[in-house]
């Protein structure tokens, strides 16, 4: 038998139900893997004792034949989800030591399905970043290595989640995606990552970044595992007024492998200037795979694509500047004394927030300030409508859209760090999906010339995660991505 940490979530579930091994054995195998991989810095907090406790409960249920969908499956939780009694920091000094007295809805759903928790995973500070280098708890290392031996970024902001799944120190992980934070890191480490439709998963108890864009989703080794996790995470929650009261399908059943006659769109605007030839080649390969499976490619146009990133970098910082106003040193988190109340606020926020977060708060404050609101924020919200309409037109011609996930493979730690805009360009293919509120899935599809993973992205109609997963499954099977990181 393969080692327990080599099994997928589906494999663990089936083995646990058949009592081939116990949940405690699974927990111990992962706790061992976690200890061996601390050099990746994937975790901010490890919770091995909690994982063992939960595993014992899982074993008791499994013995009685009462195992739930994720009974005894050990997960890592992005440190943006509030977890009752376990420190939650959002990767920021301003929340160091914050221990929520409540549980986020998504993690509560996962625990109610029997999942166990190995710990809280590192991320970019307040999920703002594309390389996991802005965390107050240090950068995360990509388990993959390049020929030149330089340390690589795992992507971001869900970099700890991506690294932990790829290195097999968790069976699966939660991520959040505001502009690509699930899909881009999934692409950088060779795993599957799904950003659901806005409203599919409750945002309650997740540290807010940009509320009209944020969405939680699963990150796992394959498409089937993301389907299993999404089923447990999704669902209506009265505590999030934007959560949608729709039934949750059994997503795993969508993986039929049949895409005959399905029309997939190829947006011409995604052929951006300076796109590396290997990305273009992979995209073409994806088109061939789907054609071979009986699907029909359709050339489509998303004419406002190039405006998506600048639109995002007005809307996201604006919402962030408003959301992050709550970190004032009064009720929780860091407090740095001052001679007046205002000075206490200013000192606390100057010390508590890192450089990228401060920059985004200032930009957001500016675009919302009197005299500039119409020129920037309102303008961006109008362009957002145009981007949304682009996709609505596209759905008249196709059922799903195929694109690359990111414009490059993982880059070295330190690269692109001096120029915020170069860093922002990482999300050129993922950001439009958030602006339009659509579901997006990244599937590992090939290797770069440097031997690093590359992903393909599928974009779906609102609440049509099932088609996304079905097509993703076909791409995954055709790609037969079996490469493993060196760790």
């Amino acid at each position: 038998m393969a080692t327990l940490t080599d099994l997928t979530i589906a494999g663990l579930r089936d083995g646990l139900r058949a009592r081939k091994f116990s949940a405690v054995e699974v927990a111990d195998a992962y706790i061992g893997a976690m200890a061996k991989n601390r050099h990746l810095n994937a975790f901010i907090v490890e919770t091995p004792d909690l994982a063992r406790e939960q595993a014992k409960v899982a074993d008791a249920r499994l013995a009685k034949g009462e195992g739930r969908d994720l009974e005894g499956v050990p997960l890592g939780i992005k440190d943006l989800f509030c977890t009752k009694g376990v420190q939650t920091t959002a990767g920021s000094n301003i929340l160091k030591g914050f221990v929520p007295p409540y549980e986020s809805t998504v993690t509560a759903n996962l625990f109610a399905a029997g999942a166990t928790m190995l710990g809280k995973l590192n991320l970019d500070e307040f999920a703002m970043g594309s390389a996991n280098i802005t965390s107050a708890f240090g950068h995360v290392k990509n388990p993959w290595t390049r020929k030149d031996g330089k340390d690589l970024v795992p992507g971001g902001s869900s970099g700890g989640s991506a690294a932990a799944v790829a290195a097999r120190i968790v069976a699966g992980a939660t991520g959040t995606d505001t502009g690509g934070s699930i899909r881009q890191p999934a692409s950088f480490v060779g795993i599957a990552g799904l950003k659901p439709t806005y409203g599919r998963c409750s945002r309650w108890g997740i540290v807010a970044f940009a509320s009209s864009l944020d969405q939680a989703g699963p990150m796992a080794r394959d498409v089937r595992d993301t389907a299993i996790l999404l089923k447990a995470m999704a669902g209506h929650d009265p505590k999030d007024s934007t959560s949608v009261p729709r039934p949750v399908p059994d997503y795993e059943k969508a993986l039929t492998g049949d895409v005959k006659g399905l029309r997939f769109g190829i947006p011409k605007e995604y052929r951006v200037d300076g796109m590396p030839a290997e990305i273009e080649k992979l995209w073409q390969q994806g088109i061939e795979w789907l054609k071979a499976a009986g699907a029909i490619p359709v050339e489509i146009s998303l004419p406002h694509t190039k405006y998506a990133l600048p639109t995002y970098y007005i809307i996201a910082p604006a919402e962030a500047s408003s959301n992050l106003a709550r970190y004032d040193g009064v009720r929780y988190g860091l407090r740095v004394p001052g001679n007046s109340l205002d000075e206490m606020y200013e000192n606390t926020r100057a010390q508590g927030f890192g450089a990228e977060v401060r920059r985004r708060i200032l930009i957001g404050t500016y675009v919302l300030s009197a005299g500039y609101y119409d020129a920037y924020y309102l303008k961006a919200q109008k362009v957002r409508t145009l981007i949304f309409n682009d996709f609505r037109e596209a759905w008249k011609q196709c059922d799903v859209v195929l694109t690359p996930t990111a414009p490059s493979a993982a880059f070295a730690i330190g690269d692109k760090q001096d120029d915020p805009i170069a860093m922002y360009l990482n999300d050129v293919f993922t950001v439009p999906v958030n602006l339009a509120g659509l579901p997006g899935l990244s599937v590992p599809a090939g290797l770069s010339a440097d031997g690093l993973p590359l992903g393909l992205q599928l974009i779906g109609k609102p609440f049509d995660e099932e088609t996304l997963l079905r097509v993703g499954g076909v791409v995954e099977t055709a790609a037969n991505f079996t490469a493993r990181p060196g760790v």
Partner: protein
Amino acid sequence: MSLDQATVARIAVLARIKLPEAEREKMAKELSGILDWVEMLKDLDTSKVEAMTSTVEMVLPQRADKVTDGGYPAAVLTNATEPVRISQTDDSSGGFFTVPKVVE
């Protein structure tokens, strides 16, 4: 659009983030770079476009105006930086958050 240092200082006050004078120039440059880049949105005629309010076509739910949660001040105060009680000797005297003196 280029931001001068005085504007950056004003934004920092609005955002309640202390920005030492020595850092203003660098921040002004970075923010101006981002604002120059988003200028491209001006190429688009949006005079007849409605601003996006929600990507999901749904009516915001309403509920009865009833208290559904609460009644645990101790849990609320667990993460308070400097929680105080009215009486330091009497645990039942209620908890509060504290701030620097605001009334002279």
